[in-house]
């Protein structure tokens, strides 16, 4: 376990404490402790079915949680749902833009439901579309967008209310590599310009390594390791070296010396990782998203 001491609650964007969530007999989230610091990009990593989406849905108030388990900038997700929602920009895993409306109409809906006053609505929507480089396509129907454009449109929908915490559930699932890096570049640019906190789930280890300030490795409902990608990889490298020295086998060196994040994951998850793959509905939902992305 590499759990770091929790920072002061004042600088915590998200804190989960002993959070449980079960679907029937299945424990999707199992006494989860999580703390996301203000201003960072935090990556929640894990295979399908690890409980990432359930954890996200608890934080977004979609799933009912007991009091004092989940806090978003100090607001309790059970008692102050509306306050929490006002701080959130949420992009679910599915393609959640409405294909039967234009990009601009999609963003305007979210400006309306977040109470953006009429006099600044058009300007704010235009800025949100501009940030994700969709100004030129704003008045086209969303069904004519490419997969990457739809993700960027969803980003604009989430940004129009000036959230303090952006929550992205598998934002790059099903996208080609170019669209993936484009989505990440936009997330980064927005983060740099606004100082917004980003909580993202992904099962792409390379993305997490490249773009996240800190990562939490989640498996079977729990976080098994927490830290920067370098820290986690360094810790595993040092431990392997120590074990090798103690066992008297050759100490790994060169390219094999530093493990990848995936190695770290296999190490903390232990046996059974390959058999985990999410249930039927997880796979179906991921495939449906992928097929809509084209």
């Amino acid at each position, binding site marked *: 376990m590499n759990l770091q001491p929790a920072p002061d609650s004042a600088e915590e964007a998200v804190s989960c404490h002993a959070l449980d969530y079960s679907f029937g007999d299945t424990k999707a989230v199992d006494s989860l402790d999580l703390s996301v610091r203000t201003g960072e990009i935090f990556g929640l990593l894990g295979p399908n079915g690890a409980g990432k989406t359930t954890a996200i849905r608890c934080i977004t108030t979609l799933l009912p949680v007991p009091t004092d388990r989940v806090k978003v900038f100090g607001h309790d997700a059970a008692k102050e749902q*509306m306050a929490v929602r006002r701080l959130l920009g949420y992009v*679910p895993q599915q393609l*959640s833009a409405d294909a*039967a409306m234009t990009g601009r109409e999609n963003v305007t809906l979210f400006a*309306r*439901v977040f*109470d953006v006053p009429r006099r600044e609505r058009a300007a704010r929507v235009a800025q949100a579309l501009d940030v994700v480089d969709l100004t030129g396509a704003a008045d086209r129907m969303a069904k004519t967008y490419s997969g990457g454009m739809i993700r960027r449109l969803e980003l604009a929908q989430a940004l129009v209310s*000036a959230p303090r915490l952006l929550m992205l559930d598998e934002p790059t699932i099903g996208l080609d590599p170019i669209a993936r890096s484009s989505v990440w570049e936009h997330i980064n640019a927005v983060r740099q310009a606004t100082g917004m906190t980003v909580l993202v789930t992904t099962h792409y280890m390379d993305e997490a390594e490249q*773009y996240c300030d800190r990562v939490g490795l989640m498996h079977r409902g729990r976080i098994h390791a927490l830290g920067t990608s370098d820290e986690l990889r360094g810790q595993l490298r040092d431990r392997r070296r120590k074990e090798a020295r103690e066992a008297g086998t050759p100490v790994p060196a060169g390219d094999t010396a530093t493990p990848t994040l995936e190695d770290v994951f296999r190490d903390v998850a232990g046996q059974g990782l390959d058999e985990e793959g999410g249930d039927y509905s997880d796979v179906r939902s991921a495939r449906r998203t992928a097929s809509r992305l084209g």
Partner: protein
Amino acid sequence: MSEAHDGRRPGSADAVDPGRFELLLVPPAPRTGWRVLPARVIAMCVVELQKLRHDRTELYTRAIQPALWLLIFGETFTHIRAIPTGGIPYIDFLAPGIIAQSAMFIAIFYGIMIIWERDAGILTKLLVTPTPRAALISGKAFASGVKALIQAVVVIVIAAALGVALTWNPLKLLGVAVVVILGSAFFSCLSITIAGIVLTRDRLMGIGQAITMPLFFASNALYPVAIMPGWLQVVSKINPLSYQVDALRGLLLGTPSHLLLDFGVLIFAALVGITTASSLLGRLAR
């Protein structure tokens, strides 16, 4: 981080100049209290109108069935005079019933759309906005009312073209609009309630099919309650569609009706529907 990306296209994300999105740094001031509900209802209705503006196919295809009812069923039964209608031609008697029926069909379909929106993530995202569930359901309910209202205009035009003697009194037409919207609010909430219980689109489609025709036949839409067998009269009495049709007939044709009771029942039914559907909405979010 992004330094790792070379050769990116010009004008790409990190060329963002902070002045370009100053508005996105300030959260909007929240609406509070009673002002939340009308704002959300308007937002949902605007979405419905925008969608209809982009694609009017549904408006046309949904006009076919009521047109056939009026043209074939209405004309035929007007000639054979088999149904006692209190002195008015049968097609006149039928027209308000068909308006209510086409509104109900749209509303029942709305619950199926909620499940589709859930599967697509659209509903999920709306549930994470500062919108109380009752306000979201009210918004959806009235949006289905707006859709039904536009459909009602189409049916009224068809009926007028077939020679039905309808009122053109604007106040009465306003009453017709309110009745159509209230009825749709109830039936869309009924459908969302069932959606909240059965949770899947396939099951809801089946149930939707199974209840729409009985609701239609067990009402005064096609024939007066007086000629029904006793048990059907009881069903008709608790069927909000009967009250909707009664009000529509009274307003559009000037036949004797019980407007106060009709409006009372429709408002009550809509409120019960919104309450029940909101309390079950959480199940759809899971």
